[in-house]
């Protein structure tokens, strides 16, 4: 009887151990092999994947992916609002990158025993952390660490360049109804655009607003009176060319930025994606705000 009880205990112990060991594998539930077929619904993470050398492992991207050029040849599987689950499953992926808010999709994929990576939107620190997590999840840890270090170094370099220079009050506009002053969306005091601006040597005129985006009225713009207006646009939107756009601000002539003709328009999708090119974006901001520092 004692021997039998012992065997039973051992059996229970083994079973328990198996379950206990299996539990805490947070984002990677398998035994740690790098994914070979990655589907990414998040353009920022697609860029990260390619930047850390996981490009060849990417088999499909979102409808909004544009960079790097290699993604153009890849199949598209929808995006935030319309992910094509069937198509995703048909590609037999072993890692799917989804938005944090796509909880339904995540559940669906987990039921299919597929690994997911959930994207958290945030500022620069979050972005750099995400690069590291992506490196960990895809078996490119070293490359991701290197990337993060180089990005940090570039950001520090920008900080140094503009150190000591007077910091203008900047209105950072990322959306506006073309040709008018309506539907203006500006960066608030939170988020990666705000942080890049601050590193680039500018003070966000809406730094006190605890939200990522602000829709200011004309009165608010006049009251805040920024020294510089920095208009940021992703490339690919058809608008009138640069100088015509700046004319829209002429009506607010009491704003120092308008009076002193410091309205800048910077174009490029790298400006609005919180990914590996954020150092490039920060440098672009710094060039616009402090051109003399780069002579």
């Amino acid at each position, binding site marked *: 009887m004692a021997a039998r009880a012992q065997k039973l205990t051992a059996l229970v112990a083994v079973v328990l151990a198996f379950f206990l060991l299996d539990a805490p594998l947070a984002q990677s539930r398998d035994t740690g092999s790098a994914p070979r077929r990655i589907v990414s619904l998040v353009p920022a993470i697609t860029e990260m994947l390619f930047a850390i050398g996981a490009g060849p492992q990417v088999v499909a991207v979102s409808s*909004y992916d544009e960079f790097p050029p290699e993604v153009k040849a890849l199949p598209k599987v929808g*995006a*935030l*609002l*319309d992910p094509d689950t069937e198509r995703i499953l048909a590609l037999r992926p072993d890692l799917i990158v989804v938005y944090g808010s796509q909880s339904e999709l995540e559940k669906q994929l987990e039921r299919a025993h597929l690994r997911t990576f959930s994207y958290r939107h945030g500022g620069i620190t979050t972005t750099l952390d995400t690069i590291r997590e992506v490196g960990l999840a895809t078996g490119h840890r070293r490359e991701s660490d290197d990337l993060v270090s180089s990005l940090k170094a570039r950001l520090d370099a920008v900080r140094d360049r503009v150190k000591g220079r007077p910091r203008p009050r900047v209105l950072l506009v990322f*959306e506006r*109804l073309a*040709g*008018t*002053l*309506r*539907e203006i969306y500006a960066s608030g005091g939170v988020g990666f655009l705000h942080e890049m601006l601050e590193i680039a040597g500018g003070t966000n005129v809406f730094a006190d*607003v605890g939200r990522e985006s602000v*829709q200011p*009225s*004309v*009165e*608010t*713009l*006049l*009251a805040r*009176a920024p020294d510089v207006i920095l208009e940021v646009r992703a490339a690919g*939107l*058809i608008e009138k060319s640069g100088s015509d756009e700046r004319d829209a601000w002429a*009506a*607010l*002539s*009491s704003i120092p930025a*308008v*009076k002193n003709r410091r309205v800048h328009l910077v174009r490029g999708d790298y400006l609005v994606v919180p990914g590996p090119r954020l150092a490039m974006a920060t440098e672009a901001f710094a060039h616009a705000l402090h051109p003399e520092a780069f002579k």
Partner: protein
Amino acid sequence: MITADSAETDGTPLPRRTTSSSIRGRLAATILGFGTVALATCVLAPLVGTTPISLTRALDRSIPFDQNVDAQIFFVARLPRVLAGALVGSALASAGVVLQAMLRNPLATPFTLGVSAGASLGAMLVIVLGGALTLGPLSTVPMASLAGAAAATAVVYWLATRQGHAMSTSVLLLAGVTLNSFLSAIIMFVQYIADFAQVYRAARWIMGDLDIGGYDTLIASLPLVLAAYVLFAWLPASLNLLSVGKDAAAARGVDVPRAQRLAFFSASLATSAAVSLAGPIGFVGIVVPHLVRLLVGVDHRIVLPASALFGAAFLVACDLLARTILAPIEIPVGVVTAMIGGPFFLWLLVRKS
């Protein structure tokens, strides 16, 4: 012989109504009264806002305009906004009165016949396809929404007049409801294929925005609204008669098809102009006529001008609330009108029962 009937039907005395005083006097008093309210609101509203300004400094000509922040806030930010609010509020309230009379339904709004849905679709198409689809002058949101409104108006008119010269009000209502549903479905589809930013912009447009930041769009809308008002001027007496019944109106000398066309097109014109300027701001076209009727009775010769004036004051006041009550955050004006309109109707309902 014929004797006097018992007055009360359930024992409670019924309200007295003041109609014996001359209508000329009442009309003059109404225009004076409501006109003063409208004027006062439009004069005071630009003085109030999240940023304190000094009127004397704003009007001080000796300071160059580009150095006078107070003047810029007054003349560039607030005044166009107040004027737009007055124009849109007046247009929507008047259109509401006219449609309610023509459709013989106090619950009709300027948006009942699908005009605003057409305008919304036009705006949405430009917001979403704007880059891919350049249609010359129709590439801007105001122009496209105007075109959409005009198209919706034409469709409803065609549907309503197929059976003869006089418009059947039931066909009109049905056409409006159908068009609203159909266009909403298309709008939903367009939003679905849009990207996130576009969807947000579209949703924001629908909440209404009076912050026009300049006089251009205002001046562009002005001829349309004035034309609508000229047409409105011919309507009030006919509206009284039409609201009793089509045949009754015809028997009293109203050219019913002509009056209906006049009412339909003037109301559609005013609504189109208002919506293309500031988006579809709801509740103005139904709250104001009801409030006015509570104050001055139901004679359209008084209700129409009173609503035009009170509508202006009402929307300017709502916009004032919208931009100051949660400062520095601005609430879209359509949200404020809805938050006032909803409880108002609840109160009306409770009062009636």
